[in-house]
């Protein structure tokens, strides 16, 4: 990684460290975006300009699994820039990350997760779930989502979006981000910097705005390892769309992909309600 980048990152961290850690400012530019996410109806389209790093054994998976799409485990996507789409409405969500040829997708619908990939073969589009052009639903991993945070495409984007969620609505694992600086840029744009220390890593995120529109996100995180080496990651995201309008065409399985799930007959046993993922008025006993 270029030395210049690290100088900038360390400089940025040093400057922000001296600023009093303010809570989310009363009228921060990021606020409307947080509210859009909390309302649960949105579409986000982005480009991750920084290819995912090769996963190593230092990034050990958590007991409860990962919630973000595992782009770093795809040999094809590993060293490529990716595009992502996340859309949600009425409790259902769809996410995809990939490029023009290969896309990883997840549709979460009615407490079930459908994982599949989409390939471009010449002019044709093919899907692969549990087989060619067919997919079976998995039970949704609520625990991973709760502990790791909601997934917003790849792991980078998920971390950058979860950072702006209120402290009371995300797991303690995700870090306490505070507004560290805000200002104007020479080109007329504005920015807000948020900072947190998560797992001993210093993390700084800069959200760029054109007027009130979220345009880009840049982040740097670093820590020093026992041997003195710097361990870090930078990431640049270009936001193409961040709106409160869900793309409902994406919130169903695409045509040409068959749902092959063998679902059990519904059990009327009251006890089974504990395993339905639905609202229950009282604790199931």
């Amino acid at each position: 990684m270029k030395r210049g980048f690290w100088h900038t990152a360390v400089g940025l961290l040093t400057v922000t460290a001296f600023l009093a850690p303010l809570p989310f400012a009363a009228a921060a530019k990021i606020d409307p975006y947080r509210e859009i996410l909390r309302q649960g109806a949105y579409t986000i389209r982005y480009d991750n300009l920084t290819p995912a790093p090769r996963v190593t054994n230092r990034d050990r998976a958590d007991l409860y699994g990962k919630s973000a799409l595992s782009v770093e485990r795809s040999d094809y996507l590993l060293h490529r820039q990716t595009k992502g789409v996340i859309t949600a409405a009425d409790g259902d969500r769809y996410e995809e990350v990939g490029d023009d040829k290969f896309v990883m997708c997840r549709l979460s619908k009615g407490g079930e997760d459908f994982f599949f990939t989409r390939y471009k073969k010449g002019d044709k589009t093919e899907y692969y779930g549990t087989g060619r052009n067919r997919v079976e639903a998995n039970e949704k991993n609520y625990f991973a989502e709760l502990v790791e945070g909601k997934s917003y495409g790849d792991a980078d984007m998920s971390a950058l979006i979860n950072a702006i969620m209120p402290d009371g609505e995300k797991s303690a694992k995700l870090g306490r981000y505070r507004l560290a600086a805000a200002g104007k840029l020479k080109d007329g744009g504005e920015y807000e910097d948020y900072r947190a220390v998560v797992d001993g890593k210093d993390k700084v995120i800069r959200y760029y705005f054109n007027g009130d529109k979220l345009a880009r996100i840049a982040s740097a995180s670093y820590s020093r390892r026992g041997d003195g080496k710097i361990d870090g990651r930078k990431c640049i995201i270009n936001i193409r769309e961040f709106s409160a309008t869900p793309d409902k065409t994406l919130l169903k399985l695409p045509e040409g992909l068959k749902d092959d799930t063998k679902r059990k007959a519904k059990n009327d046993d009251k006890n089974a309600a504990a395993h339905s993922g639905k609202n229950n008025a009282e604790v199931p006993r």
Partner: protein
Amino acid sequence: MKPSAKVSAVWTAFFLLVACGTVCAEQPAADEYRQMFRAGNFCIEFKDKWGERVLAGFKGMRMERTSYRFSESNAAWLNPLGKIFDGSGPQNPETLFKDGKYYQFVERDQAIMCDETELFGENLDPRQGWDTIAQKLALPDELAVFYWTDSFRKANEAVAAPQYVESFKKKHGAKEYDCDRYMGAIRTVAGDQDTKIVYDMLYDEGKLVWGESFIMRGETIYPVNTLEIYSMLGKQPTEAFKLAKKTKVYAAGTGDMSDLLEKPLQIGTMGEL
């Protein structure tokens, strides 16, 4: 109040407490499980949503296998002659931790090995799955309520160790069981502890048979897992650690020339190591 009324009130209170004690207390087997896991000598056969598994610990060793019947190989069972030609040897585990080394048995007679001190090595091939190997050997969450500090589990700071809350009768399918409930808070950044992870341990005649877990967030319940326990205390763990001594052991790939040439380096056999 008359003195006699006071005495009878005290007695009533006493009997109520005793009665409550017999109904509300944790199952006696819970303490046995605690001691068993702490001592590290156990053999559990269970099924969860990922399949049937055997997990055993003995003198600091740990093993795991996804097919839970480990007495004889299927080949031997299907074909009596197999006993002579095939099935007489012990069936290896799928994952093993022994003497500070992790083993993954990739073929019937092949294993790859990585020292625990090298498990975090950046050069290990990520596709070999060393990052999840300790989890495979960890107690499943539902059983970890008895031993939350199991060294193979990767602690998550957001999830507090579950504590015993209450006992009651709970139905699973058509049958009613004695249920011990354990709860742990999932903390938010703000420190709220309103979301809980709940583990219901269901006992039949004093034996643990089901473990159910779910997340409780306000009035909403999210399912997590259901564990069916086939056996917990019955089997000697030593049986699970019988290894085929001729199994060839290879070093974990670190992206070196032998990896590139796809010729892993053999470092010995199971019998020698």
